[in-house]
């Protein structure tokens, strides 16, 4: 069954996770839901690939994690951004803006 949604481009998942966590700390399931809502179900995130990414970011010390009661009252592992993660987000946003700007320029050049 072909998915009607786009697969997430390589390397952007980390940036999206950092962006979501920059608003408020969240647990894995929460991040998955938020990704779904924000992207209005246009982008398809494989739920399984979320966790390796979270652990990777944590290992890079961009995220820190701790167990806290969640909205259901059950304990969940909440991730939040470290100062290093916040800086990394700025860097990634910047490079993304430059990349997409460049791609747009090329498209506009072609259509003119």
């Amino acid at each position, binding site marked *: 069954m072909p998915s009607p949604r786009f697969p997430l481009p390589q390397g952007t998942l980390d940036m999206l996770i950092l962006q979501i966590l920059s608003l408020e700390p969240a*647990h*894995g*399931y929460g991040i*998955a839901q938020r990704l779904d809502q924000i992207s209005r179900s246009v982008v398809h995130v494989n*739920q*399984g*690939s979320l*966790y*390796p990414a979270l*652990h*990777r970011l944590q*290992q890079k010390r961009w995220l820190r994690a701790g167990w806290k009661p*969640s909205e*259901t009252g*059950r*304990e*969940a*592992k909440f991730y939040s951004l470290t100062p290093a993660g916040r800086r990394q987000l700025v860097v990634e946003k910047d490079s993304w803006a430059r990349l997409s700007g460049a791609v747009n320029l090329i498209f506009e050049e072609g259509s003119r």
Partner: protein
Amino acid sequence: MIQLVNWFRRASRERGLDRELQYHYDRRVADLTAAGIPEPEARRRVAVELGLAQVREEVRDVWLTRWLRDFLYDLRFSARSFLRSPGFTATTLLSLALGIGATTAIYSLVDQVILHALPVREPGRLVLVDWNADDLITGAIGSSNQMPHAICRELQQQTRFLDGVLCRAEIQVNLTAGGDPRPVAAEIVSGSYFPVLGVGPALGRVIEPEDDSAPGTGPVVVLSYDFWQSQFGGAADVVGRKVLIGNHPMTVVGVAAAGFRGVDVGAVPAFWMPTSMYADSNLSTSEDLFNGPERWLQILARLRPGVSAAQAQTGLLPWFRPWLEDSTRRPGFPGISAERRRLYLASTLILTPAPQGHSPFRRSLSQPLWVLFAATGVLLGLACLNVAGLFLARGSARGRELGTRLALGASRGRIGRQLLADSLLLAFAGGILGIALAPAAMRALIAFLPHDLAANALRPSLSLDLLGFAFLVSFAAGLLSGIAPALHAGRDNLVNSLRERGGTSSGGARLRKAIVTLQVAFSLILLIGAALFLRTLTGLVAKGPGFNTSNLLAFAIAPLENGYSRVDASRLVRRLDEQVRALPATRSSATARFAVLTGGHWSNKVTMQTDRRIVTDGFINFNSVSPGFFSTVGVRLVAGRDFDRSDTRPPGEIGPRCAIVNQAFVKRYLAGRDPLGVPIARGGGSADVKPDSPIVGVVADMSYRGLRDRSEQVFFPLFEHDDTGATFYIRVRGAPQQAIPSIRRLVQQDDPRLPILWFRTLDDQVSRSLNTERMLAALSGSFGALALLLSLVGLYGVMSFVVTRRTREIGIRLALGATRASTLSLVLRDAVTMIAAGVALALSCVAALGKLVQSQLFGISATDPATIAAAAMVLAAGALAAAFIPAWRASNVSPTDALRLE
């Protein structure tokens, strides 16, 4: 780093991940059921969505890189399987530990003696400056790269190429520091020595250029750190203390930096003194060593950055040519022919890189050390082969396990890696054990080396370099011993290996046979080496020095070093000689200017006048001896007479009155003539050498420098007024040790401040002079024995393995009427093939390796057929015996039992 932490925390990490995923799973299922999907369907969908197993695996990869994780799992698995078979583990571990320990120990000596750069600033820029002019013109002694002081000072002006020049000489002096005078080794150095080397003081100051500006200006000494620690207890107030060098007062001005032991490995100086004080050392006192042409110092220079030794050598020519011209006009320059003058003026300075300093000790020891290093390399290779063989045996025992893993989908690479992890783990464990063994091995090695040199110059300590080396060796050993079994893993047919009885598969038998063949070859090489060195040692011992050493004592004094004048020294020696002779324990006694069998010598060319003038083509060894020397040491007088009192030259007369030569000299230069009466003289070449000392006697050959040496020798009468020879030879009645105290007392009564440099029996002297040979024989002998043992065990293992594999076949043969004998020969044929191949392999290497060891041998060629045949016989006999046991077992197989096993 974090990754390794993760490995040790992996249990709690796993639990956390499980909880986290469980939370996700439960929430998702709850959300889906709330949206109206029935629970079983929701669970199924979530499980697919998440892919739990894969997520876990991917997260683990984040924690710890895949290969590292696999490797750590492999190591854990290996460790567990090793603990299950302790016998196997102990055997392999021990052989690796022995190999690695021995290699590390020998390498430490190779490093310290040969490779280690001096602990000074930028040792890579140091060069040794030598001069290739004719020694006879310039007055150099032997080949110890000696130079005049003047060149050193003038070289310092050549700043275009050189950043600094230092000169130094080794001296032996008597040092008095608040106790009895003791003979110590020291270095006499230029004021530039410490600044150029970049060595500072640990205390006080070092010798500075001002101390060395003109003769007599710097009565100071700088102690070496070790000497300060051992003799002064590291006292902080040592600076400013007065000490006596000979009987000259000097002031201690400082202690050199710790770890700095001069520029000569093997001669550890107790202190340094400036060359300006040469008159206070025991060097010749009559010449102006500061300005004269005497060559008595070694020169080391520091190249300017970016200048190579060759560039500097060429660049110095424009300065050196006029210097040479100039030197011929100086007073004291010998009268020489035009041809030799031309050669002299064409001579150059030779600059050779010397980051390790200058060391005659290194030269004499480097060959034996390389030989031993090569031998340990072979031994280590053998140990690796042994471990490889054991692994293969274990691998075939584990054939079913590996087969099962292959069948379950493990890749061959994965299994090979597991086996490699096995061997690496073992090798590193062996390496750690080896490192633990190494200091003891080093101590044992150092004990074998010439004692006076090695004891203080070499340290049995582990350095970081050494640990690095041991690590590399262990890694190499692990790879070597593991690679064959790893490559072999799973080469067997999968179906076969899973069968109850892999009757047709080779089980690595061919590989194992190849390994045993190599082992046989390696151990034969070591055995031949051992036999050669053993025969060298026994040959030298049997040959002896050419005289009877039992009941013979010798001791030496150095009166000049204690401030005696030459005349007084000569009187003292004569007085002591008479007193010693009068002792009741003395049978006879005599003195010689130089001690024999100590490696030292005095030599020059000799000119003779027969019907024509003959100049020897090589250097002849000289000694001056007192009347009765030959009868005391027991060297036969072949013709003519011994010296007597009337041969002693009265003061004022120049040149010895007569000479005695040995048989080798007569054979070489005066064959077919009557040697008696032929006039000879020391020196050759220049026309002003006048042969005027007639030969009055011929003596049998004796060893001079060492036991190997049986060179041409010329003896002159001692007790000429400037001869201060001070080695006494005493033939005693009864046990030599008992006579020592009374002789010591004699010397002390005469001058309590005069130390005896050494006192030993000639037996002891002979055995000392054989240190290197004994080390080579003992070590190569034990290596050979070890190698033999390892290869016999290997052969036995393979033969047992082959026999077990062929039990059924043998049973059938026996049942069909084969005899015991034919079964025996069937199995032995295999062994004989391996042994023969190994022997052939070894023999082809022996010729090449022979070149390496030839210089260390005596009276035997490195390819001596008898020795090689004997070693090969020993090996073949041992190997056949090792193979015979399994073969015998095979021939005793009962056909019914063998077939019932099916």
